[in-house]
């Protein structure tokens, strides 16, 4: 027995209303605007190339880069192939990404509590802040020899550099956020019987979160710089290692594909933080929406 529907489905409800249609078209317009500049550059670059490259072979054209990337990403290595750039892309991305994740997590674990403490306690500020400000101008590249001397050519050397790089913006922004907490929020909490630890955990930390997220975004960016630098010198895997190695063997197509890949995963990880921020700081989003 078959069931037949007596009435046709109302189509009006399924069709987008004028409002949603407008929203979708404005979205599409902004995507189109975002893609316009890179697209133009890529086309110009392609057209400027002769025999598949620019600048006397130093800069392969986009179609060559694309072809090289496809093999790097999806190629299956044959038994005789000596090229390391066949089907190893995902592996390289993962090596770098997990180092960034570890170093970044470590930087958060140290930077956020320390920043809260420095912002909250004058004593902690007097004791710790000068040291941080004095070590901060030392660039992560200057830490490379020490990192290699201590950890050798190993994973943790890279993680160590990422932690140092991401630590400063996180601790400094957290400090700023913890220092600028509205006085009346703290007074209100004290009035309601909150102790010192309650105030740190329930007032200062949430109040500092907008600043902390600013620090996280900057820190993550530096983390990606750090991972590439350390992989170029101190580790034998990951996008940074491939970048340098490909340069040595003259594979500029891989170098460029690698650079694009770094940009892409960096962009993606930042997007994740922004999504997290939007979710955690819903109250703040509404606030700026209201005013």
């Amino acid at each position: 027995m078959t069931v037949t529907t007596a009435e046709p489905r109302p189509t009006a409800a399924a069709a987008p209303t004028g409002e949603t249609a407008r929203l979708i078209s404005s979205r599409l317009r902004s995507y189109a605007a975002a893609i316009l500049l890179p697209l133009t550059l890529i086309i110009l670059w392609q057209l400027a190339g002769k025999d598949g490259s620019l600048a006397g072979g130093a800069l392969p054209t986009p179609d060559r880069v694309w072809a090289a990337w496809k093999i790097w990403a999806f190629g299956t290595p044959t038994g005789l192939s000596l090229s390391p750039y066949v089907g190893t892309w995902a592996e390289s991305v993962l090596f770098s990404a997990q180092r960034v994740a570890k170093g970044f997590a470590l930087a958060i674990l140290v930077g956020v509590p320390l920043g809260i403490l420095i912002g909250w306690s004058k004593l902690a500020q007097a004791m710790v802040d000068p040291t941080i400000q004095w070590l901060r101008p030392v660039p992560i590249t200057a830490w490379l020899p020490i990192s290699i001397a201590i950890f050798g050519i190993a994973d943790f050397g890279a993680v160590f550099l990422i932690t140092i790089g991401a630590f400063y913006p996180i601790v400094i922004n957290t400090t700023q956020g913890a220092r600028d907490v509205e006085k009346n929020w703290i007074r209100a909490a004290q009035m309601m019987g909150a102790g010192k630890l309650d105030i740190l955990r329930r007032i200062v930390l949430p109040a500092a979160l907008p600043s902390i997220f600013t620090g996280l975004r900057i820190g993550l960016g530096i983390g990606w710089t750090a991972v590439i630098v350390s992989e170029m010198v101190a580790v034998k895997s990951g996008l940074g290692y491939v970048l340098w190695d490909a340069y040595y063997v003259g594979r500029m197509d891989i170098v460029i594909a690698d650079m694009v890949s770094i940009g892409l995963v960096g962009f993606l990880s930042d997007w994740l933080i922004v999504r997290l921020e939007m979710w955690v700081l819903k109250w703040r989003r509404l606030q700026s929406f209201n005013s």
Partner: protein
Amino acid sequence: MGTITFNAVSKTYGGAGGVRALDNVDFQIGEGEFVALLGPSGCGKSTLLNLLAGFEPLSEGVLTFDGRTISKPGPDRGVVFQEAALLPWLSVWENVVFGPKVQGTPRAVYEAKAREILTIVGLEKFHEALPVQLSGGMRQRVGIARVLVMEPRALLMDEPFGALDAQTRLSMQQLLLEVWQRLKTTVLFVTHDIDEAILLADRVCVMTARPGRITRDIPITLPRPRSLDDLTTADFTRFKAMIMAEMRAGAH
């Protein structure tokens, strides 16, 4: 015997040679009394409240609450701030139960009470709302509810309705009259609004600035329970005329 006693209290900001915000204030508030502190801005009335709340230390004199010297803020003195000062990342419900929670009160004890108080202040449908989603008047209702839920021995209100529009202010005054009628808590209410002071208080203490002093202490003998209708009675106007004359004299 007053529960709140200011004995020759002075407050100077910025060390010796600084600004003298309060000068030698002697002042008592009795158990269950509603006292309004009236004066122009900058006369030190908020300073007086902050000392009582324990937010700031006094420079000279003795300040006691229930016979004990005040050293820090605490839930026995519930403060209602001018701009409510709610925690913006917490919902209305979480703001209201913040006090009981940090004091370690079991949920079973505070839950019913918080629910009841939110209903009294007319926010039973807004438990999950965030402060930014509320109007100024509703936010201040939360500010009052989070204090009432702690059952404080005294309420310290620092121009709580000063930032609200005239209409909302009237409905908040009505609400406060109703709540106070039920609870009869000791209240110190800081305001610069003469009508508000007379309508709400048992005593209106007039303050003058530079140096901050209480110059007159006027008992408001209007019968209780009061309502917004009292604002237009002849007796009310008489008190108002008296206080206005007093404030003009102080402003010379």
